[in-house]
């Protein structure tokens, strides 16, 4: 609680903290904020640009936020050119009824933050199949943002155990585990990721892929943490209280859990926050090249995969927006991590 207070007292920490809260909040309540289901396609609006929101139309005496209908013509390059159809006006209604979903998985409801009735509103444009990118970002964030947290937590856990054991016992155990750590750290992570992904069949269900990505990323990530925890454990094991605990007959396991690892926790907290971006980026990278989360499921990485063609980027730049969400999230985690480090470890404030 004290740490939270100190974070909020610092400007950069405060900004990062609240942006992250906002992101996680909107992702958890994705169906409420999203106007459409994530796989709701509409061929008539393939690559529709972001819808402009108007506030005033004197002819029709329309006030407040509304959108016009959309039609398209095919031009001489066989591309669709979308135009607004001023004869159709759809006012934006708040807390309106839409598709049915389970609120937090508990009870069924059909209330949404906003909706336009029969019109189609694309806040951030549409993709190839005419799906709303805003909706898909919200749903994709569920995967991208949770993979970061879970992956970092798992690899931190492995790192604490391995690092603690290896630092505490030293000698041959230490030597062996450290060589393995070095090997894992030395292999370029992207190639390791590919090799690991290759050891599983290519067509898995979404849940399986999700779990697999977490396993792969934690497998790559534990080594760096283990090395640093090991370094701390080596110096911690020479403390008098550890000798005292040994003299009193406490088992090795209990000494590590009770007397060594708690001292590494403040470092671990900083490390976990600073490492989350790596997991988010790892998922994005895998999904981007088609080895991660598969369609129709959304993740920030596979949303970007439609940007792989240069023509798509040029004609429909809004498909890059999911990337902005990745950048914002990563910036925030970095800022939060740095603030945490300043609070917990004032000595390293040089950087």
């Amino acid at each position, binding site marked *: 609680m004290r740490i939270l207070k100190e974070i909020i007292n610092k400007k950069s920490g405060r900004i990062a903290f609240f942006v992250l809260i906002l992101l996680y909040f909107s992702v958890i309540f994705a169906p409420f904020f999203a106007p459409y289901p994530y796989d709701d396609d509409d061929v008539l609006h393939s690559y529709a640009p972001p819808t402009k929101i108007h506030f005033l139309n004197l002819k029709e005496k329309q006030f407040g936020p509304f959108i016009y209908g959309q039609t398209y013509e095919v031009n001489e390059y066989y591309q669709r050119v979308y135009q607004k159809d001023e004869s159709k006006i759809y006012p934006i209604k708040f807390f309106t009824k839409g598709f049915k979903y389970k609120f937090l998985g508990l009870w069924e409801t059909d209330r949404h933050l906003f909706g336009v009735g029969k019109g189609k509103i694309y806040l951030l444009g549409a993709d190839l199949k005419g799906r709303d990118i805003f909706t898909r970002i919200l749903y994709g964030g569920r995967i991208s943002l949770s993979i970061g947290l879970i992956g970092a937590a798992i690899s931190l856990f492995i790192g604490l155990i391995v690092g603690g054991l290896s630092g505490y016992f030293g000698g041959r155990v230490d030597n062996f585990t450290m060589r393995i750590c*070095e090997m894992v750290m*030395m292999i370029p992570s992207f190639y390791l990721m590919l090799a690991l992904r290759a*050891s599983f069949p290519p067509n898995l269900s979404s849940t399986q892929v999700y779990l697999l990505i977490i396993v792969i990323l934690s497998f790559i990530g534990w080594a760096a943490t283990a090395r640093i925890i090991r370094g701390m454990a080596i110096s911690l094991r020479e403390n008098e209280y550890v000798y005292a605990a040994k003299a009193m007959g406490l088992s090795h396991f209990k000494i590590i859990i009770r007397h060594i690892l708690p001292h590494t926790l403040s470092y671990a907290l900083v490390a976990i926050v600073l490492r989350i971006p790596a997991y988010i980026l790892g998922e994005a990278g895998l999904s*981007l090249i088609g080895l991660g989360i598969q369609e129709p499921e959304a993740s920030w990485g596979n949303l970007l995969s439609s940007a792989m063609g240069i023509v798509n980027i040029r004609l429909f730049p809004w498909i890059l927006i999911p990337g902005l969400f990745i950048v914002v999230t990563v910036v925030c985690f970095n800022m939060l991590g740095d603030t945490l480090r300043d609070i917990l470890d004032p000595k390293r404030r040089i950087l």
Partner: protein
Amino acid sequence: MGRFILKRLVFSLPLLLGITFLTFLFIQIAPGDFLDKLRLNPQVSQEAIKIYEQKFHLDKPLMVQYFVWLRNILKGDFGYSFSFKAKVFDVVSSRLFNTFILSLSSLIFTWIFVIPLGVIAALKRNKFTDRFLSFTSYLGISAPSFFLAFIFLYLATFTGWLPLGGMRSIRFEEFSLLGKIIDIGKHLIIPTLVLSIGSICVLQRIMRANLLEVLGSPYILGAKARGLPKIRILYIHALKNALNPMITIFGYQFSALLSGAALVEIIIGWPGLGVVTLEAVRSQDIYLVMGSVLAGGALLILGNLVADILLGFFDPRIRYDKT
């Protein structure tokens, strides 16, 4: 020095063995192999598949296969790529060269900027320039390379000055030698920028911290007290010592660069090691995967070795010959 290099190379052999064995294991765990495609093809007879199986020892246990592969490498045979229908050595060596060019150019580009920017930030500590550099490096660190690649490609579509991906123009073969070099150089600009920005941002901060630390040390104070000119203190006494830790980082950067390069290569369409590995993994082209992992590992070990040798040149306290 010669002995040191030899020693390092010998010690890196187990590492290479470990990496390749792990990769081999991972790929063999996966269900199916590259012959599945042939098995499904009605035009290929069962006998032909049998011959293939025997030729590549696919009917033998895993360990035997691995050692057969190792033995063949010692003979200079890196295996056969089923998807490229060519020798793995030929496929990988040309791609390795492309990746090497890209990595080298981004390394050079990075270090041209890192040292001056770090020095400027340290000298203008907490002034506007420093704060500006710190802010931009925050953004640069956080922007993933693949996103930067997309952004640069998007910007490039408007200007038309730079080629949009790939490594050579369509009419590459018609150019003179100079024209070819210029053509590749033009194609290099975007991937180099994309790969360098992140590391420039990180390393520039580290350089600043190093220099500040050195500038605060007693011997600099001593030099100041003796009335040495500021420029001499900075460039001769401080900078050299601030550079030492950077050279170690230089070696480790190679690993990060290689994995960063793979994704950017795939997006930009640079025909490097990353693209080949991805292809190979997708089609379970086992010897090609092994070949490119081996090549990547070798490149890495070479990078670390170069860093150690450089460190020996810059830091007179390190003597490799005596050990």
